[in-house]
């Protein structure tokens, strides 16, 4: 098995990628505006619910329960889905899943598919694999269409084109749809997309979707969305293929009651999604005549193996942590080098790849806790970031200068007497760098501080020295 998460394995380290993106003023303005708007909407509809905290706890409990008994729930799902006439495929990794999907399409002699937004397919690099097999995928979610036509990468889990503003979208559409006179009002752009997509909805015979949830007791699959493109993708084609990450299972239909309150409020600040599609297998002559589910592992069982961080798999991909994150707010999603950006991406991407890649991501956080505060399933992201840093250090993958510094500082801080000696030493060592009470141009790791900020010199008397002197004076 070889786990790949999009192109994360080849991505630049976070600090380097972030440094470049920070130069893009337009991008940062778009980000600030978009995240402020979504955060405001979310806060409003979350505050309406008096039992929000209870809902979060309940969701966390359900998800943790599912992970504990995942094997049996997956088997139950498979059995129920087959009973309803669906075909179930198991894929250990992205390339197996891509192969299964391309195989189904080829068997039907087709060379085109329509897709409803699925991050999991981006994780699998499904579009690349299909194109390599001579199959053309059409994204039908507006933002995904912008990404696809712009030959771009998603920068947000829920709003993948958040980094683009409408004049940029207009330019992409003008060029790729050959529309010279296109305006840049939202209604102009959506009308152009609608016209472009309508023909594909009616013509293409195979649809591909992801799943927000898969219900074990009924074998049904749930997709929620806002644009109606999803409803068309899962109802118009003759054949429907749904990709389900194995952690998307819910035991019972009634569990949706919790999650369908949490997800839309957290994701888009809506009380309910405009379109909630739930189906189990093909039915008669209405809708797809053939239904396939591809159950994808791709590293998820790696994540489950570590009890300190397995709750990462509780994620329902709402994107609230991205919108709340002060780091994401500055850099946007591309800095994370993965289809999963922001705080959840910083813990999920490295874990899926068993920490073989994306090791800079667990450090891409100030541990401010804003992500944990908004997470609808209460994933303690800051704790998991710390845990993953610990795993990186344990593997011996932390930089040598950092390891030496940490060891030395750990020794200096190990008791009061050593700390006192270290304080005296610091006052001597700092002398060459001291100018007007500030330390300047510090070497090595500390240069990261003094490049952007001043640092006051260590004062002449420490608190403990003052206290000792005071004790002598007063005799206490």
């Amino acid at each position, binding site marked *: 098995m070889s786990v790949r998460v999009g192109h994360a394995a080849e991505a630049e380290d976070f600090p380097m990628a972030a440094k470049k993106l920070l130069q893009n003023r337009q991008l940062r303005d778009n980000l600030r505006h978009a995240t402020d708007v979504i955060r405001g909407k979310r806060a409003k509809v979350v505050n309406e619910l008096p039992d929000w905290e209870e809902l979060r706890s309940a969701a966390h409990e359900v998800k943790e329960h599912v992970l504990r008994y995942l094997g049996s729930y997956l088997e139950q799902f498979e059995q129920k889905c087959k009973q309803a006439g669906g075909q179930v495929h198991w894929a250990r990794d992205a390339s197996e899943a891509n192969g299964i999907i391309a195989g189904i399409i080829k068997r039907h002699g087709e060379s085109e598919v329509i897709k409803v937004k699925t991050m999991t397919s981006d994780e699998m690099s499904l579009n690349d694999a299909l194109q390599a097999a001579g199959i053309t995928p059409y994204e039908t979610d507006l933002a995904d269409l912008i990404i696809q036509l712009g030959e771009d990468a998603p920068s947000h889990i829920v709003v993948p084109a958040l980094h683009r503003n409408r004049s940029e979208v207009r330019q992409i559409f003008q060029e790729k749809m050959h529309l010279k006179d296109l305006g840049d009002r939202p209604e102009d752009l959506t009308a152009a997309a609608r016209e472009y997509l309508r023909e594909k909805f009616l013509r293409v015979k195979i649809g591909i979707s992801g799943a927000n949830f898969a219900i074990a007791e009924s074998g049904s699959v749930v997709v929620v969305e806002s644009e109606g493109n999803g409803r068309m993708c899962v109802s118009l084609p003759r054949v429907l293929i749904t990709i389900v990450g194995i952690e998307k299972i819910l035991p019972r239909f009634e569990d949706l009651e919790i999650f369908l309150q949490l997800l839309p409020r957290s994701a888009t600040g809506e009380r309910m999604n405009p379109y909630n599609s739930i189906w189990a297998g093909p039915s008669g002559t209405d809708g797809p005549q053939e239904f396939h589910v591809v159950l994808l592992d791709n590293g998820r069982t790696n994540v489950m193996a570590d009890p300190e961080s397995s709750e990462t798999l509780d994620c329902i991909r709402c994107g609230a942590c991205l919108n709340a994150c002060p780091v994401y707010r*500055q850099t946007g999603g591309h800095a994370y080098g993965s289809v999963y950006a922001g705080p959840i991406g910083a813990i999920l991407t490295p874990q899926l790849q068993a920490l073989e890649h994306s090791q800079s991501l667990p450090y891409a956080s100030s541990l401010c806790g804003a992500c944990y505060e908004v997470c609808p399933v209460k994933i303690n992201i800051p704790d998991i970031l710390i845990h993953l840093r610990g795993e990186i250090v344990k593997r011996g993958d932390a930089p040598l200068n950092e390891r030496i510094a940490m060891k030395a500082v750990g020794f200096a801080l190990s008791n009061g007497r050593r700390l006192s000696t270290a304080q005296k030493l610091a006052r001597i060592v700092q002398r060459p760098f001291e100018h007007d009470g500030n330390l300047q141009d510090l070497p090595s790791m500390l240069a990261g501080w003094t490049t952007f900020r001043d640092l006051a010199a260590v004062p002449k008397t420490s608190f403990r020295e003052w206290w000792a002197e005071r004790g002598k004076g007063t005799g206490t």
Partner: protein
Amino acid sequence: MRISLFITCYNDTLFPETGKAVVKVLEGLGHTVEFRSAQACCGQMHYNAGYQTHALPLMEHFVLVFAGAETICIPSSSCVAMIRDHYPKMASRAGNPELGRQVADLLPRVFEFSELLVDKLGITDVGAFYPHAVTLHPSCHSLRSLCVGDKPVRLLQKVRGLRLVELPDSEQCCGFGGMFAIKNADVSAAMLSEKLECILNTQAEVVTALDNSCLMHIEGGLSRRRAGIKCVHIAEILAGTEPVSQA
């Protein structure tokens, strides 16, 4: 009350004035302050940076030093968060039930400075005088881990002469984050710059917080910009007194 001060390693070394102010305020309220000189560090930096094995002996040392202390006052919410949120887990991961019991025994006696004043001592007016326009940066740990709520505001509102100015987007992180400020210096600086814009907009003379770590970061940015705004720990404001008339 006998109050044992855990000054924290960085306040001890870099911000002795904060410690002096804590002593002045607590003694001014009639309490006895003790300082156990064997104390050093809570282990937060190592723990958060991924050096949990280095943090463990620091934690064990803390537990040993403060065993039997009646009340422990810590003028740093991030160190209190380290102790409250992580010590129990560290003890259980270390497979040491005795250490776990010692931690459980210690935790109810640990107070961040504003918690100590408002919750434990039941006081919001410490009789301070500080004639300046002040804005409060609610540090992330005080806000989301300790959930101190309006305790610092209530303390500041009672300070004579002080005009409290609201900070826009106050709940945004300043970008410090310990090692983050060094490992991701560019992003950290961008976050700081947004925080500084908000601070400059308040026209306050002084920025305060429960944590000198965030204040050191903010001060570093303000000083680089020659902004002329000072960063002062809340204890130093609460220790402010009316100038004695020379007459």
